[in-house]
């Protein structure tokens, strides 16, 4: 018993690499300390900006305007976020962005799931050709202006559908699903087909439930992409500001050098005049509103993205 324990101890593996720990020299310790220090600094650099934005939106506005809030929040209140409710454009953009995120992601996941399954079927007529035709679009495109002219030609400018329809077929996600479906045992599918199930039934009853992990992964990436979308709004919604996405709206506010007061109602203008609110605080608060949803779903997506990126490294 004792000997066994001893052996266990001597071969105790480092949780990361299974290295047998012999001893650490002074050089090792210095290296470790420097290493940990550098990573800690980079971590802080990554997180501090978000923290800084946040404390400046919840601290006492007068202190913020005097530039007194740098590390510690003082005089916490939430009235700035309430004040944002008075900016009607922001509300519209919020609704547009949420709807495109939900609708666009749902359709993209459904289509990628189905297409990813269908392209694994060996006896499809000219399967390789169709699959390549979809994959090539990842590497080759006609360019920005031809794409814009195409959208113009399709009548998809200044229309909500411009956000949804082009994103339905996502080649990269189709490849991810295809790779995943190929790893599912073929026997399940074959036995279902022998029992008289149709291709559609196999898809809805077997493949779809079994590929939930990969579907969740692409759903999360799709949702983040939709939420962050800016370019399509900038290019296509010229004459319909009601359809600007949140990111586009934020971009416009950030670039308004002097004041946002033309966009907001009289009550807020008064508050700005009284020094209670400032453009800086409004800009920070809008930024926070835009980033908070990402930070909220972030813990959930965390466990999916390693899987996603590893599957992606496998070629289509």
């Amino acid at each position: 018993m004792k000997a066994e324990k001893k052996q266990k101890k001597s071969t105790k593996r480092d949780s990361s690499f299974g290295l047998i720990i012999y001893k650490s020299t002074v050089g090792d310790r210095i290296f470790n300390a420097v290493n940990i220090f550098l990573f800690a600094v980079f971590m802080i650099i990554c997180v501090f900006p978000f923290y800084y934005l946040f404390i400046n939106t919840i601290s006492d506005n007068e202190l913020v305007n005097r530039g007194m809030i740098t590390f510690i929040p003082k005089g916490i209140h939430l009235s700035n976020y309430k004040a944002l409710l008075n900016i009607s454009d922001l509300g519209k953009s919020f609704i547009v962005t949420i709807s495109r995120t939900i609708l666009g992601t749902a359709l993209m996941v459904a289509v990628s799931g189905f297409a990813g399954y269908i392209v694994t079927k060996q006896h499809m007529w000219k399967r390789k050709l169709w699959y390549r035709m979809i994959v090539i679009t990842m590497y080759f495109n006609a360019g920005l202006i031809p794409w814009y002219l195409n959208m113009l030609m399709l009548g998809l400018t200044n229309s909500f559908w411009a956000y949804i329809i082009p994103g339905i077929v996502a080649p990269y996600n189709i490849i991810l699903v295809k790779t995943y479906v190929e790893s599912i045992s073929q026997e399940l599918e074959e036995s279902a087909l022998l029992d008289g199930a149709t291709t559609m039934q196999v898809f809805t009853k077997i493949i779809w439930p079994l590929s939930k992990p990969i579907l969740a992964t692409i759903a999360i990436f799709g949702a983040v992409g939709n939420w962050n979308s800016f370019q399509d709004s900038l290019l296509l919604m010229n004459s319909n500001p009601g359809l600007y996405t949140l990111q586009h709206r934020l971009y416009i506010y950030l670039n308004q050098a002097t004041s946002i007061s033309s966009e907001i109602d009289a009550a807020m203008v008064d508050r700005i005049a009284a020094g209670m609110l400032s453009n800086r605080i409004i800009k920070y608060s809008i930024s926070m509103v835009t980033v908070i949803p990402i930070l909220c779903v972030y813990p959930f997506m965390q466990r999916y993205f390693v899987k996603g990126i590893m599957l992606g490294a496998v070629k289509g």
Partner: protein
Amino acid sequence: MENSAKTTLSRPLKPFNVIYWFQRSLILFSIVTLFLPSFNPGRIVDKISKYCSIFTAAVSFENLTSKIGQGFTKEWVTEGTFRLVQFSSMALILGIVVCCIGGCMSLGNNRMRIRGIIFPISGAIIMLGGMFGVHTAYGRVTAELIASGKEKKLGIRTEDGSFYFMLVLAIAILVLSIILLIGELKCEKEQKMEMLERYKLFLYMLPILLVAFIFSYLPLWGWRYAFFDYKAGADLTMDTFVGFKWFKFLFESEVTRNDIFRVLKNTLAMSGLGILTSWFPIAFAIFLSEIRSTGFRKTVQILTTIPNFISWVLVYAIAFSLFSTEGFVNDVIEQITGVAANTNYLQNDSLSWLKMLLWGTWKGLGWSAIVYIAAISGVDQSLYEAAMVDGAGRFKRMVHITVPALVPTYCVMLMLSIANILSNGMEQYLVFSNAINKDTLEVLDLYVYNLGIGGGQIPLSTVVSMAKSLISVTLLFVANNVSKLIRGESII
């Protein structure tokens, strides 16, 4: 399994299978014409936008009549005429969709095919109805314009090539279908309609392929604008073919030539810096894996990947909060020195390239390292143990075991970034650019945007887009072949 096990079903006989292919191709082509403005028969006056395809005319009355507004208010023409065009376009779409159903059914067995022939026949008749509607609209609008004496204002037209083309298309589908109906009636019919599994699977795939075609391949049609003359503000036309005028203009005009060189310098500098620093994620992954505490490693990974998931606009918002006149840096300087500091570090063109690189690194480093971290955890542990037994120190183990394990992944990433040397994306540079730093920030993608959308120079920016796409795809092929040659593996 019954269906897929069967490899043969009754097929059309000798002359008819050719006719079927002909008919299906016509139907497929007619779908494409729905989205191509040059095939729109319903441009009854010149003032209808030249971007207006049958599809656009059917779904959006606003788009159809975007330039006719004055014509309605001053009662030169009636709204009814244009509604007629819209309904006719809808009829054309409906007809083509119905034809499609027939085209799909023609892949089945005898019974299915014969049942299916009724669809292209009725579809073609609906299309002809639509064409009649367009013809009536031509007549009405001409009469109205002559009555009001404003022929010149809206630009009177008579039925042109696209009208007769669609007419011929519809008639051809109708005639072919009738021939098929007569020819096929004789053949033996099965008990039920069936289709081979391989065609069924293809039909499931077809809608997805169509969407991919419309949004990824159809834009190539826009390349033709690079060869036609254009005046800013006017409609894009294909009236005057100018050959390679815009290609030459790009280098003959002093202004654009200088622009191109400046933009290329920026693009190559930023991509070059990116490639030079492409080993950062590897270093990140290796040094991270040297940390023993799992908890700390996980925390680092979680926190450093956050910036990857926010948009460039938000990155700019953060830059704004830290470095603008009222930002964090100025506040801290003020608090320490007691002197008012009001420097706007964003309105500054020194070291732009480096700053962009740093923002890119801030956003992407943690994320790009993930793939290497995963690769490191896949290395066979006994290698490390054996190396330790042989007396290899920490750095020797890194250099001789970890690094070689990462090289294949790194090669793929490097090749891809070389292939993408001209595509930096425009969002980052757009959000960070302002009047002061715009000369050093403008990369090719942003230049195309500024030139085409901002400046309205459609043909010129199409030329640049086109050249960029062609060069990029060539680079990708070269990189792929180099990779095949060196590593025996392709990257795409």
